């Protein structure tokens, strides 16, 4: 198998100037005195992506994800190391980045496609597809400056995915347009994968990584801390999040001073209980299920929220809820406790499912996460097919013979 992208010892240094002097006058006035701090956005990152693979890049804000994508796509040059790219690469760092507001949609399609490396002949051949994909047939001859932001983004995405590059690089741009359009985008990405094209993408959405990626790279303050199967990598990612003081901590500096902050609440090993516990290792459709999770609070924490999520083996979210949803707030005193989640009925048909547990504070910052706290299988004794056990009745009215 050939590699599509080789990232070899890539480091990127930024200089953060206290005040940036950009004119000749200022440079002369402050000759040689332009204080700056060095900041390594990436440090010795090495990995390779095999042709046809889809690799996700995850990490907290400021961990260097976007810098890495920019280095791979050639927008930034690494300070040290190199990136070798085999094949035509199209980078979608910002939808419609190359659009000229004064030009019409049609002109922009041609300009943007050639920026992404497509020849005029090819654009002409795919032009109708692009316009149809963007659903802009009626507006394509209008100037782009009169487009709504949704139209703008749809056109940007349509051009990029119709370019059909060997390698597609995407930076958190998949949340475009309405649900219908998003479905179309995901469909196109699957088709990309089937065609054996390589995809590299940055996202915060763990769901997307699970759904799409074969592997994932986890970055933390410029270091690559994990590279592995999507689930494996996400596990590391979540551990990092927790260690650094939680999801959504934008600065993420808390852990920088020394050892990771102690978790205020630790989740224990979860156990499952269903009517067949002890006699069989699976559930029957419609049976009840309870999940018991012990926890230990190391400090007094007000307004603790416990959450539960169920996913199938493809990483699709089946169900998610939390105690806040049930209006059950809880001020945790120091000590050991247990939370029991009970589903009166689990109307699933056949399949293997993972249970994830999260405990967070009232601001939604996760204190501890167990991505795969427990696992259960559902066995369907009947001949019904599908995922959900919907209650079905049928009544056949025979034709009245006259």
């Amino acid at each position, binding site marked *: 198998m050939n590699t599509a992208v080789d990232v070899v010892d890539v480091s990127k240094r930024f200089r953060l100037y206290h005040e940036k002097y950009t004119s000749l006058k200022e440079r002369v006035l402050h000759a040689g005195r332009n204080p700056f701090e060095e900041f390594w956005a990436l440090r010795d990152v090495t990995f390779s992506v095999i042709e046809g693979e889809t690799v996700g890049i995850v990490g907290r804000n400021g961990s260097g994800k976007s810098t890495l994508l920019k280095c791979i796509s050639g927008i930034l040059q690494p300070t040290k190391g190199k990136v070798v790219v085999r094949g035509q690469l199209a980078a979608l760092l910002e939808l419609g980045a190359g659009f000229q507001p004064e030009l019409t949609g049609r002109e922009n399609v041609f300009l943007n496609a050639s920026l992404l490396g497509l020849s005029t002949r090819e654009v002409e051949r795919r032009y109708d597809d692009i316009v149809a994909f963007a659903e802009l047939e009626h507006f394509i001859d209008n100037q782009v400056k009169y487009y709504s932001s949704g139209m703008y983004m749809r056109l940007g995405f349509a051009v990029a995915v119709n370019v059909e590059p060997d390698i597609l690089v995407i930076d958190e741009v998949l949340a475009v347009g309405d649900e219908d359009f998003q479905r179309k985008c995901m469909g196109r990405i699957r088709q990309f994968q089937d065609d*054996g094209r390589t995809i590299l993408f940055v996202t915060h959405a763990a769901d997307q990584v699970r759904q799409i990626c074969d592997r994932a790279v986890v970055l933390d303050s410029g270091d690559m801390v994990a590279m592995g199967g999507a689930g494996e990598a996400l596990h590391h990612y979540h551990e990092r999040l927790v260690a650094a003081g939680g999801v959504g901590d934008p600065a993420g500096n808390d852990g920088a001073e020394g050892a990771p902050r102690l978790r205020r609440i630790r989740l224990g090993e979860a156990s499952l209980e269903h009517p067949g516990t002890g006699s069989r290792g699976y559930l029957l459709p419609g049976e009840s299920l309870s999940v018991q999770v012990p926890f230990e609070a190391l400090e007094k924490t007000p307004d603790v929220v416990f959450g539960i999520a169920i996913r199938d083996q493809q990483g699709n979210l089946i169900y998610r809820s939390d105690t806040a949803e049930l209006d059950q707030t809880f001020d945790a005193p120091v000590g050991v406790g247990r939370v029991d989640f009970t589903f009166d009925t689990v109307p699933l048909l056949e399949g293997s499912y993972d249970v994830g547990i999260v405990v967070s504070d009232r601001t939604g910052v996760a204190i501890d996460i167990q991505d795969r706290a427990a696992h259960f299988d559902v066995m369907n004794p009947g001949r019904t097919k599908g995922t959900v056990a919907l209650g079905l009745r049928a009544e056949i009215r025979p034709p009245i013979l006259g």
Partner: protein
Amino acid sequence: MSEPAGSVGIAERPAGALLELEARAERAAARGPKPTRVVAARVSLRLRLLELWRSRELFAFLVRKEIKVKYKNSFLGFLWSMLNPALTLTVFYVIFTFFLPNGIPHFVIYMFAAVLLWNLFQNSIMAGTASITGNAGLVRKVSFPREILALASVGAGVVFFVFQFVVMLLFLLGFWHRPDWPVLWLVPLALIAIIAFAAALAVFLSAANVYLRDTQHLVEVILLAWFWAVPGIYAFSGAVHNKLYRHRLLGIPGTHLLWLYFANPIVAPVMTFQRVFYNVNHPISTLPTCVARAGRIVCAHDPVKDGVLAHYSTLWYVGADLTVFGVSMVLLLGAMVLFARLEGNFAEEL
């Protein structure tokens, strides 16, 4: 580097996933050989030129964009690029014929031949200098050889030149002024020379402007002065030749200040254009009548009698233009090397 914890190699994956990956890789391989690109702090000039060559269609689109954007939403559209020189010429014609007569016969044609090339140069340089900063959104978010933005500005300058050339043809017809047909082939030589020089300067200045934003203003001022170092408003033989010819360059024997004047790469192409299109008084020699009077040499010059243009042979024009072209190509390569050095930080500096 911290050891990537929990690294999962390809082989450790479930067999089904591995098979699917293999199938995908096969389909990828089936699409044939793919171009390889290296992103690093230093990339060889050869690779950069190759990248540039691959992006030639993008160049055409960017030139088209530049022209369309400039005159979009204006009523007269690209006619402005023709009206502009026509109006400038009218003003200069009125001033230098009626108020400050400089005695050059058919002054409009003489000047137009110079202004035509000057505008090509000026438009290219001004647009080129601002090309990277003006397309910051593109440079920050899209990957392509960035020199192409500066080169596209020169390309657009050439297109505007073609529009203005049409105006010049109208003027030639209007004045029933006959170009010197047998030397018409000098025109492309002059053009490639000035285009190469403009490209070299545009590539260099576009990168400089990212780091020193006032480059743009500096360029405007310099261009203002530069115009007067080109024989457009004044007659070459009278105002320049006779005065500079008599002085030695840095006192070195056998030299003269005229060399300094020709060191300006715009001069040779402009003089070539005048030689072809102005063509008045050719082949009158412009060597002035100089007489020794009271121990000093005094030269009298009459533009009508002695001519306006230089008296150089056709071969001189060929040599001068090719020299400018050759030097400019070296400068262009130098500018690209410099550009490559500065480019690495563009996305951060913008």
